[in-house]
């Protein structure tokens, strides 16, 4: 290189570095809304100094996070990065792709444990190796491995499903265990809700996932006599051509949930209220978790519409954050929340340790639903059939299920879970933790 081109080389490099560095100091980005909506967390605020945090290395990590959360043009860079990544390989002409999303939040950029070779390896710490099994984190939130895979078909994105028979068995055992604990007077039901990936047209693509039918049959087959399996699978399957799943989110729609409700009615022996009895409200413009994970432009251009069916029965809905003091909330919200809970949170406001709906039905039937978020869209349909519905989310609930059932005079217990329970054993373990020790 001659001196002139060397001068240009240095000048361009330093200009780029300086430009972003200065811009970032004088005009840091405010990405709060996007971080809340797509990443479901709060933007890192300026960390308060504390000697403890400094010693644990937490303080500098928070400064790191602050810097990256506030980085200028952050969302533009993210968008651009996603586009750049789509040039990694050949694009399918039918708009089909597999997107692997890696959980960077668990990678330590500093590589504190990864000394030996290169900082970012992380290999040299036996615990951080790729073969370390995936445990639940302290809060018991998820955690299944470092990456998840989404199948994108044009403007639809869905999580692939991995069947784990041991998890299915643990889940069935937990239900049976509850049945033993509450005795024969309480009726126990289990409903497994399949996810969208189960009903893809193309056999070839369907084979990318395990069979949720097999998983459901396996769980139901293991339930004790007296515990009834609810055949949501068949009801959804016969309506699979309708808008029963969101295209940009991993949940089902309220319409899908209605077919689930029909299955419940069949199992419990009551007549479902016809769909046309409901007044509906459409909330357009929802981009859900599958969009957040894949950031595909095809999805962004075609957001989902959340349709809500307004409850016809007088009711009161209270959320118990601490299991003692209830806070009143709307059962079905009228707008897509903008605080990062996502569009699916219009149903019941999201997931809480415990919440309770009371109605004026006065038929003596009291239902407890032990659930994950798949149950939320069903609850509004169940109001006409129970005088009380108590919702328990084993991921957050602390206490004894059997005591709770006794105290509230619960007559029916219904488990409602999405496909995660037959993928990941952690949920079954969380239910077990709320039951009296076996033996």
């Amino acid at each position, binding site marked *: *290189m001659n*001196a002139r*081109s060397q001068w240009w*080389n*240095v*000048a*361009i*490099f330093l200009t*780029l*570095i*300086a430009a*972003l*560095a200065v811009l*970032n100091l004088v005009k840091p980005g405010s990405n709060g809304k996007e971080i809340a909506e797509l*990443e*479901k*967390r709060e933007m890192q605020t300026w960390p308060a100094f504390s000697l403890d945090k400094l010693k644990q*290395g937490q303080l*500098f990590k928070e400064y*790191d996070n602050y810097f990256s959360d506030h*980085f200028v043009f952050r969302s533009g860079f993210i968008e651009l*990065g996603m586009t*750049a*990544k789509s*040039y*990694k*390989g*050949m694009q399918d002409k039918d708009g089909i792709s*597999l997107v*692997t*999303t*890696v959980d960077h939040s668990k990678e330590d950029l*500093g*590589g*504190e*444990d990864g*000394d*030996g*070779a*290169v900082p*970012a*390896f992380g*290999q*040299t*710490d036996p615990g951080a190796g*790729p*073969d370390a099994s995936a445990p639940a984190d302290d809060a018991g939130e*998820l955690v299944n*491995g*470092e*990456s998840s*895979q989404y199948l994108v078909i044009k403007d639809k994105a869905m*999580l692939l499903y991995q069947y784990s028979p041991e998890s299915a068995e643990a889940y069935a055992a937990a239900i049976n265990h509850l049945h033993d604990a509450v005795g024969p007077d309480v009726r126990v039901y289990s409903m497994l809700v399949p996810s969208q990936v189960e009903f893809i047209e193309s056999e*070839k*693509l369907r084979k990318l996932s395990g069979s949720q039918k097999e998983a459901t049959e396996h769980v139901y087959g293991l339930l004790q006599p007296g515990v009834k399996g609810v055949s949501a699978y068949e009801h959804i399957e016969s309506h699979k051509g309708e808008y029963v799943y969101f295209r940009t989110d991993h949940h089902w729609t309220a319409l899908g949930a209605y077919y689930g409700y029909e299955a419940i009615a069949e199992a419990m022996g009551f007549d479902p209220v016809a769909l046309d009895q409901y007044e509906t409200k459409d909330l357009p413009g929802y981009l859900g978790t599958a969009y957040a*994970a894949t950031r595909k432009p095809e999805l962004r251009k075609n957001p989902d519409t959340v349709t809500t069916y307004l409850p016809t029965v007088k009711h009161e809905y209270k959320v118990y954050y601490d299991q003692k003091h209830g806070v009143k909330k709307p059962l079905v919200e009228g707008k897509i929340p903008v605080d990062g809970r996502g569009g699916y949170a219009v149903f019941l406001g999201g997931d809480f340790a415990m919440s309770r709906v009371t109605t004026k039905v006065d038929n003596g039937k009291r239902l407890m639903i032990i659930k994950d*978020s798949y149950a939320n869209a069903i609850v509004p349909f169940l109001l006409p059939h129970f005088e009380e519905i108590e919702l328990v989310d084993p*991921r957050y609930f602390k206490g004894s299920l059997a005591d709770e059932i006794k105290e509230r005079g619960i007559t029916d217990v219904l488990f409602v879970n*999405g496909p*995660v329970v037959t993928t990941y054993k952690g949920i079954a373990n969380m239910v077990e933790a709320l039951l009296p020790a076996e033996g």
Partner: protein
Amino acid sequence: MVFSSILFLYFFFPLLLIVYFAVKNTKVRNWILIVFSFAFYAWGEPVWVFLLILASLLGYLASLYIDKHRGTRKGKVVFVTSICLIIGMLAYFKYTGFLIDNLNDLLGLGVTTPSIALPIGISFFTFEIICYMSDVYKGVVRAPRSPMKMFLYVSFFPHLIAGPIIRFTDIEAQMDNRKITLSGFSYGVNRFVIGLGKKVILANSVGELVPNLIGPDGSDSFLGVWFGVCLYALQIYFDFSGYSDMAIGLGYMFGITLRENFNYPYIARSAGEFWRRWNISLGGFFRDYVYIPLGGNRKWYLRNLAVVWFLTGLWHGASWNFIIWGLYFGVLIGLERYFLQRLFDRLPKLVSHLYLLCAMLVGWVWFYFTDLEQALSTLRIMFLVEWRPLVTMQSFYFFRENMYLFIVAAIASTPLMKWLVERSMAGRKTGAWVSYLAPVYNAIILALSTTLLVGSTYNPFLYFRF
């Protein structure tokens, strides 16, 4: 802190440049580098930065004493004691847990394994201190009066946490007297940007795919597993060599030349040659400070070979798979010396290339899995002892959707680009073109790396499965 982070690129680095070039005096500049280096280290290890300082001080004081009492019994005692202290420090932080685990398994002691955090870069800076004290002991260098040189040698941030492992003699003269030229700085920019691209664009993207193809969540097809292992080989090469490139580039920008660490290892034709091209500074350390003092290949060859490769493996991590990985290379190098090399010399070059590629990939399988059972299972699939379908939908998708990345990465691991650039520079017209394209190329790589780095802070993850 690491170089491939936006905090480094757009805060630490520009700040250091401003402060550094605001003063002219070399001594002051040295202290600026030291202070920033400690800050760089403290960012990841706010507590262990004192260990770094303590270890450097120990090396400094011991060397002063050794220098003064060279050739006497006193000098030797201090030398041996301080070497033991440094190695003991490394052993305590890195190997205590591993040792106790093994003793438990062997003797059934049932002692609880303490969880000792590993300070970043301890494997690198302890080795540098050992180098330095040995060189002083042998009389290769005189111990300097001022601790400044010791601090700068050990903690100079570009090589501090991931090498290259430098020798005091490498940079001794540059500490007193160095000249920063336009061409040196420009070369530093080239090296830094290329290293950044290797790490962020190639290593990170390729690495994301690996767990989907091998290990408990992958391993569903024969070709998929081979593809996964190839991707891992690329990841580890670009990760490590990219880091070394960035270190060398930064060194140039501040006027300090660090030694080279990689020289296209995957074009080697034997395990011996591979190790003369891979992590050269580590191989050099073990050669000069372990192998040759033990007697090299003149005396006790097999023992020396075994010791060096056992230690090389162990250095990479406190786990049996690394030891197996090291000894595996020791065995290959021994076999090459006894007969393989002579055999390959008579066969077409292609054979020895294929041999090394295959041997290297098998090696990386050992390196990747700390769980030996999984390493074995992966090897069984690769060599058809355990049957898997040739290819599955999933592995096919992974291949197709990352095909271009894979091809670019594979080409980038060979000297083809370098050869092309050198050829073009030789021509007058093409030379001018390349000269002016280089700044543009660097700008694009920097922009793309920044984009991907910011993108990697995006984590749409928690709560997803529900």
